[in-house]
């Protein structure tokens, strides 16, 4: 999102506007009122007596609510303003704004308040791709007695924006006008209600009936936010920046939950503005990151993904039996299958990660019932890995898109077209077996084996999965290891040739545990060496690669979530100092972003830029970036479930000082973890100083 825009959001409903609260066509970013992948309002502009307003300040009340303090006229004139305006808005299932005009004069004021309104009903997926083609549907504008009704209609697909106001007004096709006289030192106020309707078919008419619920709705939302915050563990620390990041991340994670239509509790969306929908990978990763803080996110996510698991082989959707969704979108292009993402399965990692998450959830909650409920989908997922995922017959999980027109060329988390390349810039042939996919498959098999033994009563199946995992590990360490470079290849080319670029993907290998012990120190060294580590974080691609670009999405930018999994991996293999070094870089970066890490930021060397550099068009908030703060805390505290006990093994930097995480939920009820930072980072690089800390 453009940092200059002001946003409020609740699940997949969100509003992006300028600093006076106006919405108008903007080249930089998609301003508007959005819901279910559709822009329901594309123009929303307030004038007083024909004049635009100027911003004095903006109050961020909470994630769904904000308030603007404004004066009419240009900046140079407002010092002795006779009028001022407070614009208070919130977004939930609808969008509401209360406009209050204050008269500061000793004389009455005659004021014409005008709100210009229009809606283009643009599809966010198409906005993102920059499509500007002729739309097949038609936009209708109807001025009705009580409201302005804008609609988009394409066959059975109808979306409506219904604008109504509390105070008397004149409505025309372009908006509403209020003509009022405000007494000396008096005020005038109106509520404006914008109802965004996904109109039902078969002639059913859904009317704007939410007016009675507006106030209650907001109260409920505030209570729900308070509950969400109160149910999470409390962080007590000497580091104000860390505390800010933690609070910000929790609020954003709460905000970025949406109610999928299948009546389950809310699940994480990807991020704003481009991924305000179910993104399989983002949802799974977010749950993995946050499981010991907000475990309630996970069952709904697993159940939703399970209910959408692939049941047939389909090229358009890239669906296969057992495969877990990549993305679900609700906009026009999805509904008419202009694009395949009504239910898109073009990801090779979501399926093993589904099993990984189910096991992690069981470990942290002791919940055996959900594991039994999802046995069918989990077995189907594990079967998919071998039956559909191994496209080369070499025993590696790989991908080659089946939808050659709209499918993603790369189907791991680095899914942009140029994300996988040789060091000299060549793109490898297909199918591609990227390294991290093998780590996920290995981990999924081991975790699946654990669940089969513990919950499904099938030790023979468990034995088989473990045997397959062991064989995969042996194969992988033989075929992917580059002995001269001393790191793992980013992928195997379609012909089996190792793709020799140095990438952040190798960090995920440590997390999954597929790396042989004797190779791990080299991997850790590369991850925290100058070619990958910028000082703020680990770049997606080494800076001496041909395709390296510090602003390239997957060819140089730093993705916090990617780093968080790597930090988890570094600690798993005992590289505490390296883990702390990377985590500190990210904490420092988060401080510059006021605690809200964007999906990615530039890969420039820290010595070159004083601040971590943002790029427009990158999601923020972004669920797995918010989850990063939480996972880093978990990993640095070294908290792990062990049956109904919680073990603590911290590695905390000296700079962070005291870190206490209180009321960690689990089968044990609630427990606390304490640490005092003792790891001192040496500027010259990670020194071999052992980490010590106190825990209970």
């Amino acid at each position, binding site marked *: 999102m453009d940092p200059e825009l002001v946003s409020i959001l609740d699940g997949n409903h969100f509003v992006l506007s300028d600093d006076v609260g106006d919405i108008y066509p903007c080249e930089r970013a998609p301003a508007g009122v959005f819901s279910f992948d559709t822009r329901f309002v594309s123009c929303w502009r307030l004038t007083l007596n024909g004049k635009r307003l100027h911003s004095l300040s903006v109050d961020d009340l909470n994630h769904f609510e904000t308030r603007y303090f404004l004066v009419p006229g240009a900046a140079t004139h407002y010092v002795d303003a006779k009028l001022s305006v407070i614009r208070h808005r919130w977004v939930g299932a609808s969008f509401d704004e209360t406009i209050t005009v204050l008269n500061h004069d000793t004389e009455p004021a005659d004021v014409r308040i005008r709100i210009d309104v229009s809606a283009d009903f643009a599809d966010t997926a198409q906005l993102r791709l920059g499509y500007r083609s002729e739309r097949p549907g038609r936009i209708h504008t109807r001025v009705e007695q009580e409201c302005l009704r804008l609609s988009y209609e394409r*066959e*059975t*697909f*109808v979306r409506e924006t219904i604008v109504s106001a509390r105070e008397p007004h004149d409505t025309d096709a372009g908006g509403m006008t209020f003509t009022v006289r405000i007494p000396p030192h008096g005020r005038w106020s109106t509520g404006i209600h914008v109802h965004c309707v996904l*109109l*039902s*078919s*078969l002639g*059913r008419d859904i009317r704007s009936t939410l007016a009675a619920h507006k106030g209650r709705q907001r109260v409920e939302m505030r209570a729900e936010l308070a509950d969400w915050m109160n149910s999470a563990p409390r962080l007590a620390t000497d580091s104000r920046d860390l505390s800010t990041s933690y609070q910000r991340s929790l609020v954003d994670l709460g905000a970025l939950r949406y109610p999928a*239509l*299948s*009546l*389950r509790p809310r699940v994480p969306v990807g991020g704003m503005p481009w991924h305000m929908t179910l993104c399989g990978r983002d949802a799974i990763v977010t749950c993995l990151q946050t499981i010991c803080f907000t475990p309630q996110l996970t069952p709904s996510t697993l159940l939703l993904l399970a*209910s*959408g698991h692939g*049941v*047939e082989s*389909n090229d*358009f*959707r890239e669906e296969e*039996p*057992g495969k877990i969704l990549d993305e*679900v979108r*609700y*906009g026009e292009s*999805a*509904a*008419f*299958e202009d694009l395949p993402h*009504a*239910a898109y399965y073009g990801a090779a990692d979501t399926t093993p990660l589904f099993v990984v998450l189910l096991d992690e959830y069981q470990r942290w909650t002791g919940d055996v019932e959900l594991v039994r*409920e999802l046995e*069918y989908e989990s*077995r*189907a997922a*594990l*079967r998919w890995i071998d039956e559909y995922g191994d496209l080369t017959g070499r025993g590696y999980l790989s991908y080659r898109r089946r939808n050659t027109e709209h499918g993603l060329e790369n189907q791991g988390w680095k899914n942009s077209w140029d994300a996988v390349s040789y060091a000299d810039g060549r793109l490898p042939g297909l199918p591609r077996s990227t390294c991290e996919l093998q780590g996920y498959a290995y981990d999924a098999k081991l975790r699946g084996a654990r669940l089969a033994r513990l919950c499904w009563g099938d030790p023979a199946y468990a034995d088989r999965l473990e045997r397959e995992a062991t064989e995969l590990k042996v194969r992988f360490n033989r075929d992917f290891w580059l002995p001269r470079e001393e790191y793992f290849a980013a992928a195997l080319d379609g012909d089996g040739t190792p793709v020799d670029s140095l990438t952040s993907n190798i960090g995920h290998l440590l997390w999954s545990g597929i790396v042989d012990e004797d190779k791990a120190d080299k991997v850790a060294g590369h991850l925290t060496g100058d070619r990958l580590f910028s000082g703020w974080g680990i770049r997606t691609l080494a800076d001496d690669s041909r395709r390296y670009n510090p602003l390239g999405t997957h060819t140089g930018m730093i993705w916090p979530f990617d780093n968080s999994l790597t930090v988890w991996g570094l600690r798993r293999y005992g590289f505490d100092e390296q883990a702390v070094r990377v985590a500190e870089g990210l904490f420092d970066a988060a401080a510059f972003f006021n605690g809200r890490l964007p999906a990615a930021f530039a890969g420039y060397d820290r010595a070159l830029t004083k601040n971590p550099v943002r790029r427009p068009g990158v999601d923020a908030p972004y669920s797995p970036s918010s989850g990063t703060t939480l996972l880093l805390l978990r990993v640095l505290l070294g908290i792990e479930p062990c049956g109904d006990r919680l073990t603590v093994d911290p590695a905390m930097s000296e700079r962070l000082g005291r870190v206490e995480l209180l009321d960690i939920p689990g089968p044990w009820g609630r427990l606390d973890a304490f640490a005092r930072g003792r790891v001192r980072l040496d500027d010259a690089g990670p020194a071999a100083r052992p980490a010590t800390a106190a825990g209970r």
Partner: protein
Amino acid sequence: MAERIGQFFAELDRRGAGLLPDKYTGTVLLELTQDDVVERWTLVIDRGRVEVRRDDVEPDCLIRSPRDAFARLLAGRQGVFAAVWRNELSVEGDIALLLGPVRDLMTRVRRGGSDGGP
């Protein structure tokens, strides 16, 4: 088209016991419309066993669709998710029954097998 719909329910009636995993339970009422004619089919799913009925039963999930649109879904020419977003399938109640077992059944009957699961 009419044939495909008839075949679908006949096949469910014939093989109702072996198509779904036993995790699914729920009653689905399908109302298929053509012109002014509404035909109703009830699927009673009891721990994976599917029974086709024509009498009125209070459903957990009511699915309304034009007959031709439903036939296109059965033929696999369009996706179920997209049909819901586009309002060709209108759903009341527990939509998870449509996205889970009913979607699964459409595929299995079309493929003539039950090899979608483990």
